[in-house]
């Protein structure tokens, strides 16, 4: 039997900041790959005709959304110590990505993708004098059992109940003419809801000015069973 190649899994917490919010998930993954190449880390590749780097992410982020906490895993063929990997990779990350934490994962664990089950977001935008209306609309949304949203994709349009993915209540704060919503959303194998869809749903169903020009959506937490993904397995 051939000897199995040595494999050491590293899990990292990284950001996707404003400068990169319009980079797709796939392109974001590619930029991390290039950073790993520049860092000259002994990264492992898949076998086969088209080898690709063994790098995976917990959950894709929608285009236009920033994040304080993306989680990724990559496999090295050498057992390098955490500070070395951390420093070498950090030095090669472009503006808009910060490596916040890194650890070597020991023992068996599930794929990152199947671990994440909850995402929390802060959504902020200018209220344009409709603070009260927004407060009422959010309350109505919180009280509703079901909220049917028309999801339009280039391929098809379908109706989904977005309320099933909302954990607890949407919270609303208004300050200096700005509205800030806080949402906790379920990630399930069957799907989830995008925060932008919730904003669109509420503004449409309540006739609020739906041409809000500058919506900022930030993912603040990504959790597994209520705990930090760095420690999940």
């Amino acid at each position, binding site marked *: 039997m051939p000897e199995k190649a040595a494999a050491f899994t590293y899990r990292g917490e990284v950001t996707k900041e404003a*400068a*990169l*919010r*319009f*980079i*797709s998930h796939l*392109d*974001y993954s*590619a*930029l991390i*790959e*290039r*950073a*790993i*190449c*520049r860092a000259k880390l002994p990264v492992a*590749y898949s076998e086969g*005709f*088209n*080898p690709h780097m063994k790098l995976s992410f917990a959950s894709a982020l929608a*285009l*236009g959304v920033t994040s304080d906490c993306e989680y990724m895993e990559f496999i090295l063929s050498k057992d390098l110590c955490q500070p070395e990997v951390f420093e070498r990779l950090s030095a*090669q990350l*472009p*503006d*808009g990505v910060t490596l916040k934490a890194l650890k070597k994962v020991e023992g068996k664990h599930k794929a990152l993708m199947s671990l994440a089950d909850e995402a929390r977001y802060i959504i902020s935008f200018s209220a344009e004098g409709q603070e009260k209306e927004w407060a009422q609309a959010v309350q109505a949304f919180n009280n509703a059992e079901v909220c049917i949203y028309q999801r339009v994709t280039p391929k098809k349009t379908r109706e989904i109940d977005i309320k099933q993915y909302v954990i607890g209540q949407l919270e609303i704060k208004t300050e200096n003419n700005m509205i800030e919503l806080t949402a906790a959303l379920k990630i399930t194998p069957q799907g989830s809801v995008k925060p932008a869809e919730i904003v669109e749903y509420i503004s449409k169903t309540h006739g609020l000015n739906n*041409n*809000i*020009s*500058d*919506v*900022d959506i930030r993912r603040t937490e990504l959790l597994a069973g209520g705990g930090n993904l760095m420690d999940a397995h």
Partner: protein
Amino acid sequence: MVHLTSDILQSVVKPARYTGSEWNAVHKELDGITCRFALSMPDVYEVGMSNLGLKILYEILNNRHDTWAERVYAPWIDMEEHMRNKNIPLFSLESFTEMKEFDFIGFSLQFEMCFTTVLNMLDLSGVSIWAKDRKEDDPFIIGGGPCVYNVEPVADFFDLFVIGEAEEALQELVDVFASWKKEGRPDGRIGFLKRAAQVHGIYVPCLYTPEYSKTGMYTGIKPVDDKTPAVIYKRIIQNMDDVETMEKPIVPYIDIVHNRIMLELFRGCSRGCRFCQAGVAYRPVRERSEKKLRELARKMIDSTGYDEISLTSLSSADYSCLGGLVDNLMCDFSNEKVGFTLPSLRIDSFSIDLADKMQQIRKSGLTFAPEAGTQRMRDVINKGVTEEDLLAATGAAFKKGWKTVKLYFMIGLPTETDEDVIGIAKLAKKVVDHYKEVTGRRGVKVTISVSCFVPKAFTAFQWFGQNTLEEFARKQQLIKEHITDRSIHYNYHDAHVSLLEGVLARGDRRLAPVIYSAWKNGSRFDGWTDQFDLERWNKAFEENNIDPNYYNHRSRDFDEVFPWEHTTPGVSRAFLKHEYEKAVAEQLTKDCRRGDCTGCGICQTLGVNIVDWGRNRA
């Protein structure tokens, strides 16, 4: 500073075209910057970001402490609509500064069909379209790239042009600008332009007046005074090892046309194909040494994290020690996942062996350019390739497992007969049959791509009248009728675009109002098939009472003076005429790279030499 709101970015295709901040993009403090230079390509981000010349200039200009070069490309239709509706001016991708605040906006002019996009970008920048209307504090609009070898149709839109290779000329120009600015801008805009005209290789069109005869024939161009050079010769880099070049290319976040490292092996190609303008424009051949190339490859891999290097040149397989170079590069990067590609394959089995070695895993299609269907026609254009060469090369490829081959051809060449045209279909069939002979199987795919010949300035065929629409259409049909095998896939180009290119490629300053009208009628992105609209151009010719046939279909007399002759690659007119005569007589001219001088006059006129490591070693 321009700020694009998220609703705009969410609603356009590929928003990362407009958001910048890529790896290796250069950001500077404005303190101490004398010259702000916008480098532009009149096309979308993915095309502009793939241009080697702009990448080189970006790095060279940014190596200067007094200069900040930034990038700007043409916004796609969707973004343009937002910008026009919301009065957002065109901006740079580094600092999001609006174009009007730059000292220079440089456009790389790769082909004639980009001209209306230049006008559109100037308009989006809030800069006057016509050079004569520009105000004292407007940016200087500068052009470069292959179109400078007949730049007259757009001369009135530009303040200046760099003729030839810009690595050194542009630096000298910035020096002139810096001292003019430091002295308090003496004599204003024209004061700078007059100084710039003294830099070798810089053409300032407003200092020249074209003249025409009573019958409307161009008779020559007059410089404003005797200090202004009557002829502007191209600039050329003699030593490709010593010249400053690209070491840290920008790594885009989205996929672009050439999303890999471009390692430029050499400049120039002296095979002497008679239709080819690049062959004349970039002469003589100047190679980089293997040592320098390996050093550059290492630097660029380390600075980018790319996993692919393209060995770029007009004809890469002609690099004198390519086999050794490829072996050594593969060895240098054997512990990294770095792949190598050859963008241009010569029609021989050496090229196939190399391609096979380099693409050990993926067998993507191979592309060859026999250019013409019969030996007679290939002799006319001096394409030194025989049918046996093509069959040997494709045969070698089939043996190694390739199943798809793409062949490039042209129709509408001088002296062409129907037999030559039908020869294209026949040659494709021979390749199909050869596959069966070599492999004993079916299942090959041979794609033939046939374009319409556009005669270009400074080539042996610059006197030749382009075929008419009817002729092109008939020949396209003729090929179709003679394709008998279902393994052959046939593509041909829209002749209308080629005919318009034919007008602009040999036009004069009287075409500027036509280009302006075409843009006013809505033209931009004319190089994009889905955006090109012939009606806008037809109307533009009518509005200005200009007959396009005068420029493309007319055969020119050997003694006719041409409007492009004052911005020259240095080739002798007598040589080109002699080549035309040899073409008609079906005589070949050898490559001067390792053989005797063929007398094109470029080396002597410009005082440069061929640099070929194979020849120097021999």
